């Protein structure tokens, strides 16, 4: 009876949950701003490489994109961890997945930031 | 441990669980065989009234004394599942008032602490009472959760080594060559297996079904199953137990139970206790009696109606007047060794019933062990299920 034995706590406490919640709110706000800015700065859309470069020359854009990247990646990875927890994994597996998520999420953020900075600096 | 005497208890209602608890404390190896689950029969379907004895102090003082003594003990050992807000006996007409005099005398004789309350004060305490009440007496009644009270006894018994075999029907008694009882034959319904359990003493704690077990040993028990109906309404209209100040009658008690009030009860006779249908006329009568005590019942919705069969003792006289006290039978008197039957009684007196039964079992087996159940606070009822 697996439910009988109290498992070592994996410390997904209030903070991780609160982060998921607040980052979700931030993403909703950023996306709304993104659409407004996008509409104002590039009303016709970003259809060519040149458009993209022009768009990123506005300093608000890369800042906003990096913020969005960070929050979107962390929110979605913390969320995936929640779904994973529902599958009743062993503490060892949780530890492994935690590291995998930190590694992949960190990698995605570094890579995305590099990409944004690359474009912002003119390709 | 082979040197410990093995007692087999048939039935895991209040009496069976309390007897298991008592015998386990006295060092017995205890097995409880139950065809349903804990409190699946009469016990689960009781009104849930922790009697002060006020109900019986006039007509059945023996039961009245037992009730108040056990009331005080249960409030100490089974606090976890009893709400103790006291109760009121209210008079609605002249005959109730006349009964009031006998009630005061009876309560004094039984040592039940009562206090007369003016109608205005009674209405302040319980605004939903019939405003035309003439007088009221407060009594130390309470309300309990039937299943959890039985479970609390079972949990404590289990902690002290008793084993419970649920979903196991007793299909017969194991008899030695001389017709004495040496164990029980059971059919495990959960696994669909049959086996025989052997013990030093078999305790028949099957209440209204006591006769069915007794005949397996070719003896009999003068038990008369006397069902009554109870009706639950979906509003908690009173906080205390409301009794009609009159001789025990149909629908004379309105009892708070969680968000409900439960009205009871009636009294009639049946031959088969395995399934007792709810009779709609009796439900209607409960409603009519209840609105006399608590008129707001008329605005409440019926939530449930159920029957349960009291195990009253006696065979010839009519149900209501049979004593609510209990009897413990040593079937040696009928020539059969190894079997005792405990039946009769109220939920309120289950601990005392267990004490008397365990005393008899000890006496028969020549064991010196004192009863300690008055002092032992019961374990959390949830521990019955927690391995």
């Amino acid at each position, binding site marked *: 009876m697996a439910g009988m034995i109290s498992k070592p706590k994996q410390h997904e406490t209030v903070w991780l949950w609160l982060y998921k919640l607040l980052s*979700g709110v931030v993403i*909703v706000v950023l996306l709304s701003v993104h659409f407004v800015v996008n509409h104002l700065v590039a009303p016709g859309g970003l259809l060519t490489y040149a458009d993209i470069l022009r768009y990123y020359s506005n300093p608000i854009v890369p800042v906003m994109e990096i913020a969005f990247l960070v929050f979107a990646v962390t929110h*979605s990875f913390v969320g995936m961890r929640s779904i994973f927890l529902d599958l009743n994994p062993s503490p060892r597996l949780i530890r492994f997945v935690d590291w995998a998520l930190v590694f992949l999420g960190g990698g*995605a953020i570094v890579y995305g930031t590099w990409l944004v900075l*690359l474009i912002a600096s003119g390709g | 441990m082979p040197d410990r005497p093995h007692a087999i208890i048939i039935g895991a209602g209040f009496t069976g669980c309390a007897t298991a608890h008592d015998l386990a404390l006295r060092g017995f190896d205890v097995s409880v065989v139950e065809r349903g689950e804990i409190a699946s029969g009469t016990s689960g379907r009781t009104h849930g009234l922790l009697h002060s004895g006020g109900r019986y102090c006039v007509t059945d003082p023996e039961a009245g004394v037992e009730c108040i003594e056990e009331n005080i003990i249960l409030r100490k050992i089974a606090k976890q599942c009893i709400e103790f807000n006291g109760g009121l006996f209210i008079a609605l007409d002249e005959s109730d008032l006349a009964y009031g005099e006998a009630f005061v005398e009876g309560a004094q004789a039984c040592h039940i602490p009562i206090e007369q309350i003016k109608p205005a004060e009674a209405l302040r305490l319980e605004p939903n009472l019939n405003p035309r009440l003439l007088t009221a007496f407060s009594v130390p009644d309470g309300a309990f959760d039937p299943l959890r009270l039985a479970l609390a006894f079972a949990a404590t018994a289990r902690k002290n080594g008793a084993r419970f075999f649920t979903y196991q029907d007793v299909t017969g008694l194991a008899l030695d060559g001389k017709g004495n009882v040496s164990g029980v034959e059971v059919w495990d319904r959960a696994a669909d297996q049959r086996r025989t359990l052997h013990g030093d003493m078999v305790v028949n704690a099957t209440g209204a079904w006591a006769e069915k077990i007794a005949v397996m040993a070719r003896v009999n028990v003068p038990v008369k199953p006397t069902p009554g109906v109870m009706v639950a309404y979906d509003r908690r209209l009173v906080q205390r137990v409301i009794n009609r100040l009159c001789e025990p009658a149909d629908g004379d008690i309105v009892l708070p139970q969680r968000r409900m009030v439960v009205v009871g009860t009636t009294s009639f006779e049946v031959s088969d206790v395995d399934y007792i249908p709810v009779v709609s006329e009796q439900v209607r009568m409960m409603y009519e009696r209840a609105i006399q005590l608590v008129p707001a019942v008329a605005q409440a919705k019926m939530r449930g109606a159920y029957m349960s069969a009291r195990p009253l003792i006696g065979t010839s006289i009519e149900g209501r007047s049979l004593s609510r006290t209990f009897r413990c039978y040593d079937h040696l008197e009928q020539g059969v060794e190894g079997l005792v039957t405990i039946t009769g009684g109220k939920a309120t007196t289950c601990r005392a019933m267990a004490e008397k039964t365990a005393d008899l079992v000890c006496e028969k087996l020549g064991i010196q062990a004192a009863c300690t159940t008055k002092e032992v606070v019961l374990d959390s009822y949830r521990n019955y299920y927690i391995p």
Partner: protein
Amino acid sequence: MKNAPSPAHWLRWFDPRYRQPGTWGYILNRITAIGLTIYLVLHLGVLSTLAKGPGAYDSFITLVKSPGFMLGELLVVAGGIIHGTNGIRIVLNSFGVGVRDQKVILAILMALSIIGIAYFAYVMFLVD
């Protein structure tokens, strides 16, 4: 033990039979969460074309403007809107707003989502 909780029962997460509207909210939230995460990873991968210079990106954009991809893009937008509005419901509920009216809140937010999705579909397929 078959009836006990088990990771093997994960399909039940998505079984709305005999269930309440709240379960629909939960199912949609979970499906969109998984979908959006997959999209996020793919999106980051695909954008590497940006690093390869103008030629690679522009040819990629032509591909993306094909109707099939546009439909995929609409799915992402729809997923984002649904996940976002559902998230709003969970934030509100968690801070004690409208817990007893969660069905109404869910209905309103889902109606808003449909309007939003319809607007994006209109802009994407009809305006251009």
